[in-house]
């Protein structure tokens, strides 16, 4: 649906890669909570990191719709791998939009090949949904800066080389007093917390970072001082399309697994797919996966056309993530007891789905955004 030949080809690459390289190791990655560096290296070579980076900056220069298609297909293979792609897309989008020529040359190419591992660092103990609680502070230090504070639940924190860190630079200026710093995470004063053990997406390495008198040069500042919050937020529309696509991929994987199993499993002398009760579960799954996909692609196309897309992106993220949780629960139901047993794909899908309702803005926050946009733009906006 809506896909040009180019998008179809991009999808084919992502789909084949997911089927042949990612999906076969998903069980193992989940069980061992392992960072699949070898897969990321291959993805880098295929141009799956930094999909939107323009051709003149060495990227494929593809649009948000292509990014969405890739995220869905990768996630069908394994959501953690897709989430790495999403994380890199956020960071490279920030760099492309706000980086200086020098910052781009320094970071873009090695981020795209997965040699440089990145982290997107917003959340703090007192600043989750509400970033006005941000405490991490960067004070002037000669021509540069000195960073103090800490972040939690940062994807890639245990393995990352470079963090894109939101910090206060003016304690009295609220959202206008925050800036983004590009921080070398292997330098003095940076400490990494232990890797968290999570319910799902367990191959994603998530943990805390603390900064104690971390010395930053002047060119660590990304974009304008005081615009950090707005810059971080400006890439979130695209980020939400990414997470929504990831949720669609999980839903699609659940649907495929459930349909397959229902045709094989026999009870009462029939394949269980013959029972209307099971058919209705499958039909609902298919309907909701498709509905979510359409919302996601419509949001992606709004971004690509330069239309106001915030509401569409929030609706897509909210709907698709709720869909993924509800419909993977149904997929477990179709599998019966097997669906509750480790090693069956749907058991993992159900666990992997839950976080999509939480990160990239919880679904309560998405409701707030949708309502705010409604009130601002009117019902037809």
């Amino acid at each position, binding site marked *: 649906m809506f896909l040009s030949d*180019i998008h179809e080809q991009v999808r084919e*690459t992502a789909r084949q890669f997911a089927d042949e390289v990612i999906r076969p190791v998903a069980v193992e990655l989940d069980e061992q909570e392992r960072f699949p560096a070898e897969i990321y290296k291959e993805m880098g070579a295929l141009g799956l990191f930094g999909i939107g980076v323009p051709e003149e900056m060495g990227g494929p220069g593809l649009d948000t719709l292509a990014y969405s298609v890739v995220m869905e297909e990768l996630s069908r293979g394994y959501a953690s791998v897709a989430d790495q792609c999403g994380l890199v897309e956020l960071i490279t989008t920030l760099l492309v939009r706000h980086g200086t020529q020098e910052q781009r040359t320094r970071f873009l190419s090695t981020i795209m090949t997965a040699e440089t591992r990145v982290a997107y660092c917003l959340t703090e103990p007192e600043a989750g949904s509400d970033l006005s609680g941000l405490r991490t502070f960067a004070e002037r230090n000669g021509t540069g800066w000195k960073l103090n504070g800490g972040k939690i639940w940062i994807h890639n924190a245990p393995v990352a080389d470079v963090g894109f860190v939101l910090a206060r630079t003016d304690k009295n200026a609220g959202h206008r007093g925050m800036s983004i710093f590009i921080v070398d995470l292997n330098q003095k004063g940076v400490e990494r917390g232990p890797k968290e053990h999570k319910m799902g997406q367990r191959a994603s390495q998530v943990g805390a970072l603390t900064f104690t008198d971390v010395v930053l040069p002047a060119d660590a500042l990304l974009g304008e001082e005081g615009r950090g919050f707005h810059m971080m937020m400006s890439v979130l529309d695209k980020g939400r399309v990414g997470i929504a696509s990831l949720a669609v991929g999980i839903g699609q994987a659940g649907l495929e697994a459930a349909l397959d199993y229902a045709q094989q499993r026999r009870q009462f002398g029939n394949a269980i797919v013959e029972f209307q009760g099971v058919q209705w579960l499958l039909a609902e799954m298919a309907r909701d996966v498709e509905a979510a996909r359409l919302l996601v692609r419509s949001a992606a196309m709004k971004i690509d056309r330069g239309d106001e897309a915030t509401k569409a992106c929030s609706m897509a993220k909210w709907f698709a993530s709720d869909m993924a949780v509800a419909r993977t629960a149904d997929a477990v139901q179709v599998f019966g007891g097997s669906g509750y047993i480790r090693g069956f794909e749907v058991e993992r899908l159900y666990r992997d789905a839950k976080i999509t309702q939480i990160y990239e803005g919880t679904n309560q926050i998405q409701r707030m955004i949708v309502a705010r946009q409604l009130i601002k733009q009117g019902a037809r906006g």
Partner: protein
Amino acid sequence: MKVLVPVKRVVDHNVKIRVKSDGSGVDVANVKMSMNPFDEISVEEALRLKEAGVASEVIVVSIGPAKVEDVLRTALAMGADRAILVETEDKTEPLAVAKILKGVAEAERPGLIIAGKQAIDDDSNQTGQMLSALLGWPQATFASKLEIAEGAAIVTREVDGGLQVIGVTLPAVVTTDLRLNSPRYASLPNIMKAKKKPLERKTPADFGVDTTPRLKVLKTEEPEVRKAGIKVKSVAELVEKLKTHAGLI
């Protein structure tokens, strides 16, 4: 040296094919199509020759309806340099395809033609051999290894009962087997670059070839459905069943 690679658009190898209810053929409506897997291997081999500095240009050609442009674009996205589409609505048969390829080869003068050993739709396994005969070039079929050395190709062939190594002088026709290589994925940057690569359109008439089918399909039917097996409780019972039931030992 130019390398010419013919590619065919076929029903994707993952699709469970269905025979049309009137028995006239396989139902291809709304079915996913993709490049014949053996042709992907041929494209890959040609690209490796180019990367090794042996080939100077990789040209892909496909014969069929306008839609075959898909597989040409895929080959370009894998890294081929340019494409030729010979458009016909007729059902393509090996002899007509071989004649057209002969015409293309005479125009392009490649040093090597690498073709799949067969297409997974009709499994004819004829085109490469016919083409070699029509051109009067040597052939090396079912290649599982290919090396180019001083005007010749050293080809390891998969034959019944083992491997055979032969040398053929160039220009030659080589057909590829499954174990030759594993084809690359089209990278996103290459997909974008492929948009700008040249694709030339031709017709069979340009090569003086009549593609009217010579073969008549009498009937197409599903293979017999495999009967359900039986479960045995012990080795003794298994041996007994093999003797009495299956008559295998």
